């Protein structure tokens, strides 16, 4: 890591958010760089001091506690009373969710709800550009991927002279495990997020013959190009600042 990276990622380090490998890289730099060591030390001291000050909380006032507890007591005794109402409400909301899901699925190519949040997540990952947990080519990466998950998917982009796989890290999107790949495409960093079974409709389509990946969304925002593919049981988003990336998905 370089000094500017130390500065960028010092919060992740002091908050214990780094994976072992990143932590080791970070500490290797600190060991050799006194300026960074002092700076990270000072930043940690500041964070600790703030935490200490914040922890000195005045107690909750007695009158507030009394009123809160009275409200909680009432709510506890009325939950049983409302049980049937709640069941009816749940059925009604489920019907609405189903109807909504149908409407959304009809409105492509406009990004659907989950597509939209997946795009936001992908763009955020591209902007954050965390270092990969594992570096190297597809061959060297597969053993690590299979440690992360059972039956790991193949890295989604085909490698050629223009497109090179550089590394990957394990991440999560919502409650799903996902893999974040870093490719180098014509000298630009390209962030590729691969989410197995991202969407309900895909999960439902399981068992059908595997389709070649299909482009579902292609657009630009904040100066970045985003494309989203569905197929092979995963959803793949590609984010880069390259105007027209010439990429091919692994068939």
């Amino acid at each position: 890591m370089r000094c500017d990276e130390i500065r960028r990622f010092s919060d992740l380090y002091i908050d214990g958010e780094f994976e072992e490998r990143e932590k080791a890289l970070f500490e290797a730099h600190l060991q050799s760089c006194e300026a960074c060591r002092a700076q990270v030390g000072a930043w940690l001291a500041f964070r600790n001091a703030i935490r200490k000050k914040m922890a000195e909380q005045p107690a909750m006032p007695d009158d507030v506690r009394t009123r809160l507890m009275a409200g909680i007591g009432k709510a506890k005794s009325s939950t049983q009373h409302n049980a049937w109402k709640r069941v009816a409400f749940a059925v009604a909301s489920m019907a609405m969710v189903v109807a909504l899901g149908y409407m959304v699925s009809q409105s492509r190519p406009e990004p659907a709800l989950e597509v939209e949040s997946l795009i936001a997540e992908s763009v955020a990952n591209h902007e954050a550009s965390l270092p990969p947990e594992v570096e190297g080519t597809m061959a060297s990466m597969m053993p690590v991927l299979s440690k992360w998950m059972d039956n790991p998917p193949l890295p989604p982009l085909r490698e050629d002279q223009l497109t090179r796989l550089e590394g990957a890290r394990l991440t999560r999107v919502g409650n799903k495990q996902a893999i974040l790949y870093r490719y180098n495409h014509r000298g630009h960093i390209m962030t590729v997020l691969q989410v197995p079974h991202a969407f309900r409709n895909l999960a439902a389509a399981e068992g059908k013959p595997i389709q070649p990946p299909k482009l579902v969304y292609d657009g630009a925002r904040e100066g970045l190009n985003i494309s989203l593919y569905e197929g092979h049981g995963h959803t793949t988003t590609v984010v880069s600042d390259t105007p027209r990336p010439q990429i091919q998905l692994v068939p």
Partner: protein
Amino acid sequence: MGRARNDNVVDREFLPHLDALFHFGLYLTRDRQAAEELTQETMLKAIRSAETYEPGTNAKAWLFRIMSNTRLNQQRRRVFEVELNDRLAPQSEEAAEVSAFVELNRSAEESFVHSFSRSLVREAIEKLPEDFRTVVILADLEEFAYKEIAEIIGCPIGTVMSRLFRGRRQLKKFLMSHAVELGLIDPFAQGESTQEEDSPLENVTSMSSYKRARGSEANARGE
């Protein structure tokens, strides 16, 4: 699910977090009355949805998420349903021990904070924009992991990192300028520490694509 079971969950797993919820509410609303109402509403929602909570999982993060969503709904900035049945990941055991590695630099950064009263630090935190304030409180008062914060506030983890990065640095700037005013620090000697640091993750927040994502969700619901 019987009522007895729910009462049990409420008493054992929800009530121990009542004080923490109230304090989070105080920081969010900056008003005692509003914080009390927000806490009450959060607890009522939690009790009504107690059966969707999986006992023994991360009750605190679950409750904080309800409060965070309730607050957002109140402000009508984003309107969305509290997704109560999503289970949160178990709380991370502990932050990695890093203090053993870096030498704590007690000279400037820490001592000037220690010389402040609690209320001055609170005031500085309350000056932060609410988005930043929320993340700073969740990280530094409640010591949630980034992933938990992302789930509580419903944002990508990159946004959490960016807001925390900027929030903490803004906080330091406020406090430093107070310290200079009070003559605790010589502004010239501390020139290095007061200098602006740009967030490397700035675009994550400024791009606001997340907000748009939420916006389009609201549109799709006809709101």
